[in-house]
């Protein structure tokens, strides 16, 4: 009523109301007139079915693409800032920028390398061991999907998603030789490593015709949902090789070298956990129920592993440390990576718990027994956790979650497919061999070409000043 009164009071508004009424009537007439037309177009015609099919496919493609682009960004977040902070907090103050730069450099260098030849060597058509050069400079990697890999997302989405894995994998190695490697040597080492270790391994497990590919008819189908062998075993084992080859840091283990900021490591580990949802659930390559399954398994394993490591530490040292809890979570995330798309949530809890205790033992006991200086425990967490996770995948994989070997076929040992455990061992064994041989060869080349280590004086002064000419912290600045 109040509105009507206002309308009467204002002739302008009254005119508008008249216009609205007229338009409404006109619309109603149109609807009545078009009713028979609508009925006609809902008839089942081939054209209409084709149109609906096209619309459905587009909708699925858009949904999958949205999740995959998000996942790609999440995996990049794991490198910088996630891993950079995690590792950065664990080194001494004088090396924080040097350590963070080692990861950040991968974000730049591996990206360029991926565009030129890395993607092609990993995912292009080729042999059982390595891809070819057909996709060099991203030729033929367009916006149309590549059905062999992911039928519903643009090939470029798949390419850029895989790139994020290629970035973080070499970055993980840097934890083993932290605080003592020359930046120039690191760059050359990583470029060669990406070409000679990462690309072949990624091709064998995930590439068309790869030796270990479970989905595309490999000779030894090895289950690796998100990169247990490709990412964690290769980086972890290579890390061990580099730690032994380079030798200990000056003063290790006599000089105390505690982490300079567990707070930074804490933030980094939490970002890793967050980004890992893109790493594992994204490896479903679609936004459907398999992504959910991997998401849940990932989260559960991380939680159980934090408890496992924390409890082991509590028993052994009398206190559960923050660094222990976050290290445990990362170990659980590593171990669940190959299994994430194959196991039930409850078995994910078991995998996490076992990994948390196992990696604690590797880092605290085994490292001390052998005396190598794996400075930030890249091997103890990624090499050991990745190997364990790959084997456990063969035990716990379940065809109800993911019938990757064919509908109704037993997948893991608990289902009765003992052969899968053997295949997992073959996959892990090949990853170990490729990593050891490849890394040793590259280290030898780079050491003779450039020299791997900084001078003893430079090591004492720190990588920040000697390699980059700057300092991470200036507490005295006004």
């Amino acid at each position, binding site marked *: 009523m109040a509105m009507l009164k206002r309308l009467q009071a204002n002739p302008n508004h009254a005119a508008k109301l008249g216009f609205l009424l007229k338009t409404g009537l006109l619309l109603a007439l149109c609807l009545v007139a078009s009713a028979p037309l609508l009925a006609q177009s809902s008839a089942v015609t081939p054209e209409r079915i084709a149109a609906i099919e096209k619309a459905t496919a587009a909708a699925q493609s858009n949904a999958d693409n949205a999740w995959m682009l998000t996942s790609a960004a999440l995996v990049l977040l794991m490198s910088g800032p996630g891993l950079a902070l995690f590792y950065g907090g664990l080194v001494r103050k004088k090396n924080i920028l040097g350590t963070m730069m080692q990861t950040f450099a991968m974000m730049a260098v591996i990206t360029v390398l991926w565009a030129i030849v890395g993607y092609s060597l990993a995912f292009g058509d080729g042999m059982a061991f390595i891809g070819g050069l057909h996709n060099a400079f991203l030729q033929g990697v367009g916006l149309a999907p590549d059905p062999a890999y992911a039928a519903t997302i643009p090939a470029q989405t798949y390419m850029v998603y895989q790139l994020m894995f290629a970035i973080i994998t070499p970055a993980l190695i840097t934890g083993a030789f932290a605080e003592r490697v020359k930046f120039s040597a690191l760059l050359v080492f990583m470029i060669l490593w990406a070409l000679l270790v990462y690309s072949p391994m990624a091709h064998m497990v995930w590439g068309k015709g790869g030796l270990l590919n479970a989905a595309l008819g490999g000779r030894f189908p090895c289950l690796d949902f998100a990169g247990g062998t490709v990412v964690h075993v290769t980086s972890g084992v290579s890390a061990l090789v580099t730690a032994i080859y380079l030798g200990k840091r000056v003063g290790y283990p006599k000089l105390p070298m505690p982490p300079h900021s567990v707070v930074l490591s804490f933030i980094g580990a939490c970002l890793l956990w967050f980004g890992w949802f893109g790493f594992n659930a994204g490896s479903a390559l679609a936004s459907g129920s398999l992504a959910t399954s991997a998401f849940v398994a990932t989260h559960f394993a991380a939680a159980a592993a934090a408890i496992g490591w924390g409890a082991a530490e509590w028993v052994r040292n009398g206190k559960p*440390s923050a660094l222990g809890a976050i290290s445990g979570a990362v170990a659980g995330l590593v171990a669940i990576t190959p299994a994430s798309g194959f196991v039930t949530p409850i078995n994910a809890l078991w995998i996490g718990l076992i990994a948390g205790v196992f990696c604690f033992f590797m880092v605290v006991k085994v490292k001390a027994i052998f005396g190598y200086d794996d400075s930030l425990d890249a091997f103890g967490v990624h090499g050991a956790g990745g190997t364990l996770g790959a084997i456990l995948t063969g035990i716990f994989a379940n065809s109800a979650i993911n019938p990757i070997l064919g509908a109704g076929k037993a997948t893991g040992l608990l289902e009765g497919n003992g052969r899968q455990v053997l295949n997992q061992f073959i996959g892990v064994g090949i990853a170990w061999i490729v990593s050891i041989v490849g890394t040793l060869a590259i280290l030898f080349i780079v050491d003779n070409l450039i020299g791997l280590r900084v001078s003893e004086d430079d090591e004492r002064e720190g990588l920040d000043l000697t390699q980059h000419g700057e300092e991470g912290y200036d507490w005295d600045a006004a």
Partner: protein
Amino acid sequence: MQKIEAVIQPSKLDAVKDALVEAGISGITIFEARGHGRQKGHTEFYRGREYAVDLLPKVKLELVVTDDLAEKAIQAIITAARTGRIGDGKIFVSKIDEAIRIRNDERGEIAL
């Protein structure tokens, strides 16, 4: 004039400061320091490695007061900084010959 130097637990700094103000002392200088007496240090564990930390964070405060305020200031510090456990710190007292205010060259007790 006397100089009072006290090494105390960092967590007791605020209480000591308040007690000194209450006792009528206006000037104080503090340093963040590290050290140990009979208390020695503690051990920390990072990923199973044990680190002995023998130099602990301490706060050192310095104040110069007139002779008649010295005992009051010492009592204020003792009362505020004491927990009764090892590591509470120490107080050192010494004579001061001269005090000079830079702003106007005042000398002696008036400069405090």
